[in-house]
């Protein structure tokens, strides 16, 4: 079952749901809006090997807006620290965001119960789009669980701001064949580091 907006508000007041800071104006009929914080991360390597720690550039989202180029990818985050030890949160774009062609996650919408922190947005824009700090970009719904609860204690717990993928820490990599690349971005990738307030796209890529 999904919680209604008034029930989300009630559960925030009883501390079963965390939304900090909490603005009652952000409550919808069955979700609560999340606003965009003022920095995003972009990966520097042109090819990602998940077995290797990826280097990122931190880019500010200025008051005059950050241009996301079509088919570009970066990580943003919610200003709000959110989570719950009693309900399962799920991230969605606001319909207004989606109507502008922006994905706020690329299929990883489910948050673990017990995970408390800023939500990392997986921003993938299909059109050129300016995003602004503080804009309502996403929404969070809350779902009632069935069964005994074991709280999340994973590697993204307590995130502040966008967190890059920490998949390289997974222990099962040792059990798989195949070679990882040496750690760190290549010199070629470093020279491709962003210089302006824009997130570059698929343009010029080998398709």
């Amino acid at each position: 079952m999904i919680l209604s907006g008034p029930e989300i508000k009630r559960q925030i007041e009883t501390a079963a749901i965390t939304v900090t800071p909490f603005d009652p104006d952000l409550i919808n009929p069955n979700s609560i809006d999340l606003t965009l914080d003022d920095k995003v991360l972009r990966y520097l390597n042109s090819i990602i090997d998940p077995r290797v720690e990826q280097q990122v550039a931190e880019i500010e989202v200025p008051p005059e807006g950050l241009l996301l180029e079509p088919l570009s990818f970066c990580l943003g985050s919610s200003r709000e620290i959110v989570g719950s030890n009693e309900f399962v949160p799920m991230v969605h774009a606001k319909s207004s965001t989606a109507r502008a062609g922006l994905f706020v996650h690329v299929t990883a919408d489910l948050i673990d119960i017990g995970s408390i922190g800023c939500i990392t947005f997986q921003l993938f824009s299909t059109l050129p789009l300016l995003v602004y700090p503080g804009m309502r970009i996403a929404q969070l719904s809350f779902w009632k669980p069935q069964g005994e609860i074991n709280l999340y204690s994973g590697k993204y717990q307590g995130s502040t701001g966008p967190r890059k993928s920490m998949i390289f820490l997974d222990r099962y990599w040792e059990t798989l064949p195949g070679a990882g690349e040496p750690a760190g971005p290549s010199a070629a990738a470093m020279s491709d580091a962003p210089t302006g307030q824009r997130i570059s796209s698929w343009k010029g890529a080998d398709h």
Partner: protein
Amino acid sequence: MILTGEAITEAVECGDIVIDPFDPARVNPNSCNYRLGSEVVRVEVARDPKLAAVQQRLEPVDGRFLLRKGRFYLGHTLERIGSTRYVTSLIGRSSIGRLGLFVQLSADLGHCGAVHRWTLELLPTIDIYVYPGQVIGQVSFWSTTGDVAAYQGWYGRHDLPMASKLHTDLADHPDIRGLR
């Protein structure tokens, strides 16, 4: 209601949920991780859904596949997954989403009753290596209300990446049949 990890484990033990092979270490607070299976195909031409898509099987190099941004691939789960009692929802894991890889394209809802290796819709937004056997996504399970009419359809019978069968649906569609 969404099942907690504990409830998923119990349901696997009593046979209400199939996750095969099952490893309790892959159970999360409200989902269970699955791994990428060994076969990945690139969908090259799917312009007209009245015709079958052209797809090409990729060969792994050094135990991995290089997926290019903007290209579209189908993979499959290593595990056979499903339930005749609960509804399965399949998504990418956050560690993969944070790397810009779509693992399904807005078709996350499975049918109650379908138990098989699930086809994954892989769309990278950045060039990325994927490794057969790596943990790539997670499934959650939801309880239902009302009578359950289990899925008997085509896709549920297959364990390898299955191309879209839109063309066979459209061939029988009265408004479209004559246009071929």
